């Protein structure tokens, strides 16, 4: 089921040969549609990630013995929870393609292989956004001491950059780890050190937003340099992943 769309692409190939190969955007959209369709039908990743984040908040509440958190601590808890919940999605990202022949279907199709990277990054990004739609309000409700309303626009901006980095690095690492024997182990082991700069930038940028003295606007705005750091890191890693991704799909 997971490879139907991709196989359709492959099946079209002989007939489409006289025409020029399909454009990258069309391929990416087809692959993204397949990803989302599979996720909608199997509900394999996103509900698990959301549930995991809720249980993590509960665990943090008991482990820290706090009823409410603020500032640095709040930013850290939010970031770590999102990171680990994201890791669940990263581990599952390519498993269906590996087990049910999605890789082969893509290789048979006369399309650019980078399309798969872009589609998977988009898919993982969408999962993360859905996760945050659940996790951030839950966090505000369960643990956060200060009000979220003022900080929300800035927080959305920071989390968008974090999501982008998480999606790029996560997709790359997932592709690297999925064909190893111990993929559930190798994936997080490689991903966590690579995500440390994202964690640094994200938590530092979130920390003033989640403290009680924050009233929105420029006063408590996330340090521009942290946003710049995450953005730059996202960009560089996006380019690296784009450059080396083809070599992961070669056989």
């Amino acid at each position, binding site marked *: 089921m997971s490879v139907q769309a991709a196989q359709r692409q492959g099946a079209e190939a002989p007939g489409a040969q006289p025409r020029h190969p399909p454009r990258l955007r069309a391929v990416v959209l087809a692959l993204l549609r397949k990803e989302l369709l599979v996720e909608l039908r199997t509900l394999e990743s996103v509900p698990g990630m959301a549930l995991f984040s809720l249980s993590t908040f509960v665990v943090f509440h008991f482990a820290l013995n706090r009823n409410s958190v603020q500032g640095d601590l709040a930013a850290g808890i939010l970031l770590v929870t999102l990171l680990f919940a994201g890791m669940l999605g990263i581990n599952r990202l390519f498993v269906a393609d590996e087990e049910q022949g999605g890789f082969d279907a893509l290789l048979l199709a006369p399309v650019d292989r980078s399309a798969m990277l872009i589609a998977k990054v988009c898919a993982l990004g969408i999962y993360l956004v859905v996760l945050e739609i659940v996790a951030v309000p839950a966090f505000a409700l369960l643990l956060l001491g200060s009000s979220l309303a003022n900080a929300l626009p800035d927080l959305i901006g920071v989390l968008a950059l974090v999501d982008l980095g998480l999606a790029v690095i996560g997709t790359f690492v997932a592709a690297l780890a999925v*064909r*190893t024997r111990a993929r559930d182990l*190798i994936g997080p*082991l*490689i991903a966590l*050190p690579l995500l440390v700069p994202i964690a640094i930038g994200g938590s*530092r940028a979130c920390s003033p937003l989640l403290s009680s003295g924050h009233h929105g606007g420029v006063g408590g705005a996330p340090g521009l340099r942290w946003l710049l750091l995450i953005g730059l890191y996202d960009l560089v890693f996006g380019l690296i992943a784009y450059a080396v991704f083809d*070599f992961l799909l070669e056989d």
Partner: protein
Amino acid sequence: MSTSSRQPAGSTEMRRRRDERSRQPDRRQTLYGGSLRTLAIATVVMIGLALGLAFFYAPEEATEGFLQRIFYLHVPLAIVCLAGFVAAGAMAIMHLRTRDPRWDLRSYVAIHMSLIFGIGVLICGSIWAKGSWGHWWVWSEPTLVSFLIIILLYATYQPLRFSIEDPERQARYASVFAITAGAFVPLNFIAVRLSTAYLHPRVLGSSKLPGPMAFTFLISLIAFALLYITLWRFEMTAKHARWQLKALRRKLSGEEIPARRRSAEPELGASSGSSSAPLGEPALTTPMIGRQAP
């Protein structure tokens, strides 16, 4: 069409060249470590010189006193280690470009050596931190933390290799990892350095070292770079000797090529040699593997 007709010509050409080489056994050819002795002697001399300078020539530092002399061990070791990681990334790029398994082996050995150097850096850095700051580990210290993150990342290199069975794919994935991690090294330093206030002595930054110190530092940097290169070549030589021995033994006993055992080590004969060579003479391919790429 044209490629298939050129194929046999290419393979006979290769075989002819191989026969030529095997007829004139040269020690440098067979054991790769031709200049290893010279290199080793130069390394010993330089290390001795560096230690002598560090202990007797360099002036005592005003605030930290004798302990500061660990600087001549710690900093060169760290610089050489990081340079080794970056070089391993460059070798991995060459591997993906040329698909030559020798580049994979070079990258593998370079990462291996850098990891060992890196653990040395962490240990002597901890000693220095304990001596001058009073703690074995200081989180507010960006250079320390980023170094630890890099070592943690590279520590997954061998498990990654080990858990991929197919040697060709193992080499390819390892190269992808080495390139990414090599690019991560400078990025990570920038990121972590931004995150905390400066505390680590900025030896190569704004503050200028006095002449004798700078000279001693330079000599020990060269000494440790030489040590790295010597160890790197030594391990390459050892691996080649082992493979050669294995190939010879296989040839003598006339057995079929045994199944490859699970290993994180790159195997040279597996992807390039044995597929093109007839089954009877795999030993002929291994001796030439150690030669420098043209």
